């Protein structure tokens, strides 16, 4: 990902982190997302939503990517109009219902939550193998409106 620069330079950056897959892994992911969201000038409620979605993406990657106990590579890129968060792992993407049966009840919430909480979700299979999940938040959009 290549970030552009706007007139002020605000919100335009790329950063990458290798995160240890240990017990505090998701906490580290949240801190990474929080800092990227702050650098991108994302609203506080939208930053919360991205944190939850990124946490789901990373929990998935750790569970199915053959990454348990190893490392995750996450990156964030700020553009003029959006923030992109990405996590890559070495495994094949699994359907929520399959994960649900193998793991615990309700585990299949991960993907629907990513879709509900962010503006765009891309799941791709890069040439080098594995799965890449990209979560995109546009700067000018409101948070998901709750159902009433």
């Amino acid at each position, binding site marked *: 990902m290549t970030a552009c620069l706007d007139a002020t330079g605000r919100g335009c950056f790329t950063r990458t982190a290798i995160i240890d897959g240990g017990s505090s892994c998701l906490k580290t992911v*949240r801190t990474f997302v929080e800092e990227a969201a702050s650098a991108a000038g994302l609203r506080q409620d939208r930053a919360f939503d991205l944190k939850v979605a990124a946490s789901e993406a990373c*929990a998935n990657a750790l569970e199915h990517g053959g990454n348990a106990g190893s490392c995750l590579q996450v990156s964030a890129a700020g553009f003029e109009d959006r923030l992109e968060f990405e996590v890559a792992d070495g495994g094949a993407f699994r359907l929520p219902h399959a994960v649900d049966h193998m793991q615990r009840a309700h585990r299949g919430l991960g993907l629907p939550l990513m879709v509900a909480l962010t503006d765009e979700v891309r799941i791709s299979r890069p040439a080098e193998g594995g799965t890449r999940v990209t979560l995109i938040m546009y700067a000018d959009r409101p948070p998901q409106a709750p*159902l009433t």
Partner: protein
Amino acid sequence: MELTISRLSNVPVLNIVGEIDHGNAPTVGATIDELIEQKQRTILLDLSQVDYMDSGGISVLLSALRRLREGGWLGVINPNANVRRLLQIVGLALDASFRVFDSVEDAQAAVQTHARP
């Protein structure tokens, strides 16, 4: 995350401080399971000091609700705006056996006047 249990008119209240995620949600789930084993049919979680919750926490609430639905209910007290929105997005807030209270006083009034909603 820190978890302590208190009582509100004999209804157990899990007071949680910190963040509920995939890593520590099983601890909350195990505590709720124990209370249900002890025949508690109504359980409250005070979320006023919880600043983050992911689907790990949501899963625990859904499991508890499924077990309490017949003859009981599950309530949360004073979740912050973001957690409250998350509860609405996943549909929990629409469930008749799930209640969201703005304050401990509101929860107290509910447990005193109704055995169930």
